[in-house]
């Protein structure tokens, strides 16, 4: 192996390690890890199981909210959410039928929402405006219609 190749491979290795360190630091020190909630639920009994028996938005602290939401073909419940600017929102999500994807354009909210699993993701909405919420996993004939909004005032 030539010297230049050794250098190239050392740099390559270093670059990959730098990615690993940055990812690990963000995940474990800054708690910016990807949505990975572990709780499960009976997908055929979502409506009878707390907290999804009462989907909706609830104020839980100083400008802090909890949104319990079900996703089903081809809608979000609750829909058209309104919150004040600067609010921190904890989303608790599950699916009542097939696999869906929960995405809010213009933010880093992006999570798979699967039947049988409860998913959680948190976001602080600093900028006012109307955010588009959409399903980003193909879920059937009306997949392209599955959207709602979050209005930050």
């Amino acid at each position, binding site marked *: 192996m030539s010297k230049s190749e050794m250098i190239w491979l050392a740099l*390559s290795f270093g670059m990959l390690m730098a990615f690993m360190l940055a990812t690990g630091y963000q995940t474990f020190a800054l708690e910016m890890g*990807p949505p990975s909630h572990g709780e499960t639920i009976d997908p055929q009994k979502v409506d009878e199981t707390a907290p999804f028996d009462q989907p909706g938005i609830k104020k839980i602290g100083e400008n802090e909210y909890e949104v319990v939401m079900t996703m089903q073909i081809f809608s979000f419940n609750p829909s058209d959410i309104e919150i004040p600017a600067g609010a921190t929102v904890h989303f608790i999500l599950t699916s009542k039928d097939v696999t869906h994807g929960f995405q809010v354009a213009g933010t*880093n909210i992006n*999570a798979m*929402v*699967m039947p049988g699993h409860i998913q959680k993701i948190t976001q602080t909405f600093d900028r006012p405006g109307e955010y*588009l919420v959409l399903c980003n996993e193909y879920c059937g004939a009306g997949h*392209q219609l599955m959207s709602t909004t979050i209005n930050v005032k």
Partner: protein
Amino acid sequence: METALKESYIQKVNRYMGLQREDARISKSYLFVAFVALLLGGILGLLQGLNRAGMLELPYWLNYYQVLTAHGVLLVLVLTAFFTIGYFYAGLSHTLGGLLPKVRKMAWIGFSLKIVGFVFAVIPILLNQASVLYTFYPPMAASPYFYIGLVLIVLGVWMCAFGAFINVAHWRKNNRGQNLPIFSFFATGVFVLLFFGSIPVAIEVFMIIPWAFGWVETINVMLSRTLFWAFGHTLVNIWYLTAVSAWYVIVPKVIGGRRFSDTLTRIVVILLVVMNIPGGFHHQIVDPGISQEVKFLHVFMSLSIAFPSLMTAYAMFSVFERTGRKQGGKGLLGWYKKLPWGDVRFLAPMIAMIAFIVGGAGGIVQSTNQLNQVVHNTMWIVGHFHITVGTSVILTFFGITYWLVPYISNRTLTPKINRLGVIQTFIWTVGMLFMAGSMHYVGLLGAPRRTSYTTYGESATAMGWDPFMILIAIGGVLLIVGVLLQVYAVFHLMFRAPKGKTEFPIAEREEHDTYTPYWTERWGNWIVIMLLLIAMGYVIPIVDFTINAPPGSPPIKTW
């Protein structure tokens, strides 16, 4: 002794007569199907691009998701699998002194199984009974015949994998202590991955079939999704390894040079094989039910695949520079002018390699946890695999056809078809720049993948994506021109081009290349290491998904 004599006789015949006719017929049939699939899949791709840009409304009997399912199955399954098998079988025959009669038979049985399986899968798609896309995530349930078709396709692929193993084992028995010819070494790696990589999907489909028939009430959604990606990502990496084989073995010969270090080449193959399958988990970085610690381990396993690719980047440019300088190129970069840019057999794979610099960088970035969250399931991902599979792999395959098709058809590449190929490569490159470039960007803005034209109720955000969707459609129009030119070139070279002999271009080793240690041949060891790495990645999550599984889901048809 007798076999040895027979072997050398076959080799001699090969040298003088080209590929044996019966072996050629196998490769020809596989390539024929591959390029019919390209034509059909390409047309469907155009329909999608135009629909997504809001320029075309599909008729009521053909919906977007049906088109998307067929586009995926035709291009990422049929085109690639049939090309790979046709290409490697021609090379196995060429470098191992002909296929054994038994192996030939297996290749034909595999061919029939795949075709029958394909018909089984495609009829439900056409009837709109299987609009589940090629990832078919349960609990969306297609017609059971769709899955039966997939089983037959997998069995067909296994048939070809075992055929290759038998031929390789036979050669090794007659050539004890010798290293397998490099081309066949690549083929071995590819077929090992094809076999082991498709085991998870076979298990998944065997879980699905009784459920789709209604014999079993519910299915474990998370487990099936995980088994799918253990296969899905391996599959695209198999196509990539196939392209890499041409970069290391064929391209140096085309440019009049010699191969990169034989030992390092074999190490790259081994690394790509053993580290591949656990990489699939990066498709599940934003899934519920997998802890962040396990996800971090999988980021590591995914990123480690980048290392052999970075070795390849060095190797390729080293070969180019050395060859260019030998031919009189001077100065720091003067060597690149000496490369045969006007030869499509070089140009197409060269652009493919350059595309892989972009595609590989994008791949590294999007495998890391937080950045994945930005792009997961957006158009960015679609852009990513149109750069990697759609450009790096496919342009290499296109470049291969300009010598492989004449080789198996006993015809020659004319300057006219070469020029057509150069134009085709140019159109493909520009088309992909438009299409994949815009897809990456609009994905960052949030446009989701796998979604037909929509404004989401006149949402200003979604309407802002429209200009990029039009750029994607323009790319799509260029690409369909590329498809037509390519399909014409292949069929011309197969049936029309002037008769003559074409060489199977395998580059020689460098004169002062070091001796290749025999341990590289220990495939048994590599498979054990591969299985250990798979176990490292998958045992914890799979046990977890099985033991802590929520009640399952019944089949649902949502289209």
